[in-house]
């Protein structure tokens, strides 16, 4: 019957299995998907006012053969050097170029060249299933542990390709799958915090969830846990930023010691999934693939666009099946959200930089006084919260009011830190009775 034809297998030109890591081989069976997948090489700027795709040409050198590279964000915005003082990110941090470059960009960043990094980094920058297999003798989890415990220099030798077909698709059935142990553990913990126990995404997720989960293997906030440097997603208490911060506090985790103030710091990285989870699109089941991999007609077939980039290049296909507006109007709406984000982000960022300057001045004058230590706490929280929305790459679009709410926490914490240094006590800055009462109601609206 016709309904079932839908799943009739494509004719297979080559046989694919768990050892087929080269996307070009998969491309023989799926030329349209392969072709668009290869387009992540092209670095085409998008139309948005806050678009970040602006590659610069450079003369290749012996240790860095790249002829094009994205501008240094530390030059673009020197506030970064203060926020991340003493940490590798303050030396080299750029906008992403595209999936095609993920392995090359990682190998060549100063964060790897000038600093010792663990193999853990590789998990999100290369095609991993075959590496896990090899290193774990067929056991993915064992391979994962092995990668994490190696040095980056060692581990990267095993890598041949950036994220490839095999990372997201089962080679036999083409079904979506997740292949990263860190995600499998993380999502299980997150679902448990929501009352769903023993969740295994590869068997229990809906197909629609998988259209987000394949991306959520990498586009998430993470840290390296313990001696084993195990890649870990901090979702055990939930996926509101307060839950995540509380998790780190209980874990007693610290990424680095701040270079200008001495505070024990946390770094946040690209929490696209985390923030999307708190937005209205997630609430409506709108997935990453819906916007970033819109269907395109290719002759008599529909195919998912595997050129992962800003959806503003494809607004019509990405947005207009659900929204009704002109392309320009749709882009304007995104820009308006992003403009508000940039306004609040800058306000919060200036406050953070001023807090850092104040702590530094106080330390230089009087050493690590009790007030400096109190200010550290404000800095640690403010910096993590700001970083969380700064390192998220949608400029606030994925969850506009949630992102703004986080920025309010940042501004408040920075300024309180400054006041603490002026001798204002924590009691004088405490939340009022009304706030404490409202907090209980607000808690009911979360999750």
């Amino acid at each position, binding site marked *: *019957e*016709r*309904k079932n*034809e*839908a*799943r*009739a*297998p*494509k004719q297979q030109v080559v046989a694919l299995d768990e050892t087929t890591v080269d996307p070009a081989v998969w491309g023989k069976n799926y030329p349209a998907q392969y072709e668009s997948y290869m387009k992540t090489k092209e670095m085409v700027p998008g139309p948005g006012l806050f678009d970040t795709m602006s590659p610069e040409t450079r003369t290749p050198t012996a240790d860095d053969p790249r002829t094009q590279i994205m501008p240094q964000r530390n030059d673009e915005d020197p506030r970064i050097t203060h926020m991340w003082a003493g940490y590798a990110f303050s030396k080299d941090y750029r906008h992403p170029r595209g999936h095609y470059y993920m392995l090359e960009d990682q190998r060549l960043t100063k964060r790897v060249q000038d600093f010792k990094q663990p193999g853990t980094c590789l998990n999100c920058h290369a095609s991993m299933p075959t590496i896990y297999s090899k290193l774990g003798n067929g056991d993915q989890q064992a391979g994962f542990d092995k990668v994490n415990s190696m040095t980056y220099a060692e581990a990267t030798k095993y890598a041949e390709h950036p994220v490839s077909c095999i990372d997201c*698709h089962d080679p036999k*059935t*083409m*079904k*979506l799958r997740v292949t990263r142990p860190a995600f499998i553990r993380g999502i299980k913990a997150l679902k448990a915090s929501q009352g769903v126990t023993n969740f295994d995404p590869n068997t229990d997720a*809906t*197909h*629609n969830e998988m259209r987000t989960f394949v991306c959520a293997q990498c586009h998430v906030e993470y840290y390296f846990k313990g001696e084993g440097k195990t890649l870990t997603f901090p979702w055990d208490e939930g996926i509101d930023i307060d839950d995540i911060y509380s998790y780190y506090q209980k874990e007693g985790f610290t990424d680095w010691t701040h270079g200008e103030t001495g505070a024990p710091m946390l770094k946040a990285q690209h929490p696209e999934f985390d923030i999307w989870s708190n937005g209205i699109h997630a609430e409506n*089941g709108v997935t990453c693939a*819906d916007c970033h991999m819109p*269907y395109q007609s290719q002759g*008599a*077939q*529909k*195919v*998912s666009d595997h050129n992962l980039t800003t959806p503003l290049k494809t607004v019509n296909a990405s947005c207009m*099946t*659900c929204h009704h507006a002109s392309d320009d109007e749709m882009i304007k709406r995104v820009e308006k959200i992003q403009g508000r984000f940039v306004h609040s982000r800058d306000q919060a960022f200036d406050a953070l930089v001023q807090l850092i300057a104040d702590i530094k001045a106080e330390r230089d004058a009087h050493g690590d006084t009790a007030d400096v230590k109190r200010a550290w706490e404000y800095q640690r929280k403010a910096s993590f919260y700001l970083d969380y929305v700064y390192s998220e790459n949608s400029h606030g679009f994925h969850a506009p009011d949630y992102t703004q709410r986080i920025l309010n926490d940042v501004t408040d914490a920075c300024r309180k830190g400054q006041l603490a240094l002026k001798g204002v006590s924590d009691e004088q800055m405490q939340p009022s009775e009304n706030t404490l009462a409202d907090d209980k109601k607000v808690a009911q609206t979360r999750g």
Partner: protein
Amino acid sequence: MGARSLRSWLTLQRVAAAVAIWVVGSLIGVGVFTLIYGKAYSYLGSDPVTCTNCHVMNKQYDGWTKGSHHNVATCNDCHTPHDSIVHKYWVKADDGVRHGFKFATNTYPENIQIRDTNLKIANDACLYCHSDFTSSIHQTVPEGEQLSCVHCHRDVGHK
């Protein structure tokens, strides 16, 4: 219906109407009443105009006449099953009696919302006509699950 919506649903008018219908129904039989007064027999036909025997279907009818499928699909092409004649008439009867009763008793919401079972039927209908075009995108979908066409193409039938 949650407790909240139940509260707003239970207006005096509706309660009175429901009670009245219950009395009438127990005398002459709700089924017959519904079928005749509510024109539920309309469900058995296939002409879209018969659906507008109930004015509550006007909005969808208007949408359909403006929609992209006006020339290619009638109501029943999307809202009744294509798999077997028995299933088809079972659904028609089920919907007909249910909707007829609600129409007659004025107990349907201002904005009607399709039930999950009927949404599934509509989605099957999409595939009935378009499975060639969508076979490629369907290969990644696990057995027993279906891509929800309506997730993106909510408007095809009615705008």
